[in-house]
């Protein structure tokens, strides 16, 4: 993903969308699993695990980016392993920007999914059990569909928030045009340039429109799904 031509703002918009989409793709299955563990599993250290999952909400994003760099950088323990076994490079790439975004938006996503899981009536799962459905079957046929509004809300919120992730992305993935220069990074770059005022304003308006659109879409989607689910 580099060297694509076109106006700077379209480039940044396309990148932002790609990074946010990939980050949601990464984190969604994991977020469902973590939400399930936090809601249903009882084990020692659960509170610590809960705090750990929510850490990105309270840490400076730059610190998150820095930790990612240490772990996933070319010479970091995980980064080196990924590179030698799969040829995957994360630092300073679009995939890396997506990873940083995923880590930052993960708590938001888990929160929404967890809320919906807590609202699933355990009695319905019991009913499914008496009808012959074993654990995985119950989860797929009853729990997951009933969680759908929360999963969608979590995904859309994380996507919208991911479009604007700045600190962790610039620290871990740097500010490379066409590869990691997403909307907020392009806006920041334009503001640094003496002749960039007009571009900065356009990028800011674009971000605003995008955010508004995301929130509206999320609300409409959730309403529609709720109706489908019969609530």
């Amino acid at each position: 993903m580099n060297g694509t031509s076109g106006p700077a703002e379209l480039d940044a918009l396309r990148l932002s969308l790609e990074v946010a989409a990939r980050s949601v793709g990464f984190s969604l299955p994991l977020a469902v699993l973590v939400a399930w563990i936090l809601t249903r599993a009882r084990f020692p250290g659960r509170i610590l695990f809960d705090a750990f999952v929510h850490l990105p909400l309270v840490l400076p994003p730059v610190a998150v980016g820095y930790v990612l760099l240490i772990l996933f950088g070319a010479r970091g323990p995980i980064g080196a392993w990924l590179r030698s076994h799969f040829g995957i490079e994360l630092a300073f790439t679009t995939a890396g920007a997506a990873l940083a975004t995923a880590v930052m938006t993960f708590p938001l996503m888990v929160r929404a999914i967890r809320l919906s899981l807590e609202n699933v009536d355990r009695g319905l799962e019991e009913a499914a059990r008496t009808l012959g459905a074993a654990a995985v079957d119950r989860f797929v046929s009853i729990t997951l569909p009933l969680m759908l509004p929360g999963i969608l809300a979590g995904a859309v919120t994380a996507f919208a928030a991911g479009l604007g992730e700045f600190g962790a992305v610039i620290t871990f993935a740097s500010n490379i045009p066409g590869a990691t220069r997403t909307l907020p990074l392009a806006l920041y770059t334009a503001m640094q340039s003496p002749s960039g005022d007009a571009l900065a304003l356009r990028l800011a308006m674009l971000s605003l429109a995008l955010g508004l659109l995301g929130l509206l879409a999320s609300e409409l989607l959730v309403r529609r799904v709720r109706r489908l689910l019969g609530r």
Partner: protein
Amino acid sequence: MLHVSVLRRRPGFCLEATFAAPTPGIIALFGRSGSGKSTLVNIISGLLAPDAGEVRLDDEVLTDTRAAIAVPVERRRIGYVFQDARLFPHLSVSGNLRYGEKRARAASRIIGFDEVVSLLGLAPLLARRPRELSGGERQRVALGRALLAQPRLLLLDEPLASIDVARREEVLPYLEALRDQLAIPMVYVSHQFDEVLRLATHVVLLEAGRVLAQGAVNEVSLRPELQSVVGPDLVGAVLEGVVVRLDPDSGSAELTVGTGTLQVSLRDVPLGSRVRLQLLARDVILATQPVQGLSVRNALASTVTAISNDDYGAVLVRLDVGGETVLARITQNALRALNLRPGDAVWTLVKAVSTRGHAFRLAAGP
């Protein structure tokens, strides 16, 4: 047979219950709320585990804590109709019905989709969503869903409790139809003696986590323990008889009960059908001599077999009427005035309109 012998102790409540009941038929678990009925049903279903004990259905052990056997809920083939129906909101009525059917093994098939739909009158509801159903319709769908999972035992936990009294008729006749037409044994939890009278073949009387009495409905109706559960006003002998004469104009019927006959006010039952009815003890009048000029339709020659004080300051008189036992509740003053003793011959007077009856075909019948 369904054998249950379990112990479950929790702070503030201890269930220690043992009973054995014949199958098929409807076994009523009867008691006030908090007596342990729901806990017992949940143990039978496997949703709750007893601290100790066993649950056996015919020859199969479902739970045995000593042998460390606990068949998982999903493999028990025990249907469960919950008080609140618990229909899946994201599925249509048809989807709900198919849920258990899809998961049942073909080998254990006892009833098909079309049969359930027609038996429970579900055809007009199939495309609807659970939220578009009335309380009674919901319970019928829940019943159908449980049946289609091809259960060998069906548990019903107060299925009428969340339905208006006036709309219970949307469900009760269907339960009677299931009892009379299918060979699936049922356990029916209730705190309404009316429902027991109408549906059950066997009663287990529960109080504070213990079994006070168990047996056929007419046997249990004579047990003094019943009084502490239903209160003095609903105590009364349950009799079973056959309709031998019908008078549709006056809405009355004549039943043979034991060796005698009884005039009762009863409509909508076919000639020759078996009827179960309850004579409330407080409605039964005793006379030491034949009486004339009374509106009472039944004056039955009978013998006093026992007299006991009840817990409410009155007296319960046990009578033999043509081989059947009837209870009469009278005051201490009346007892003294009549000077009744066991062995005395008396006339038992019963108003035709004071009987509560239901047509009833025993499950083993044709």
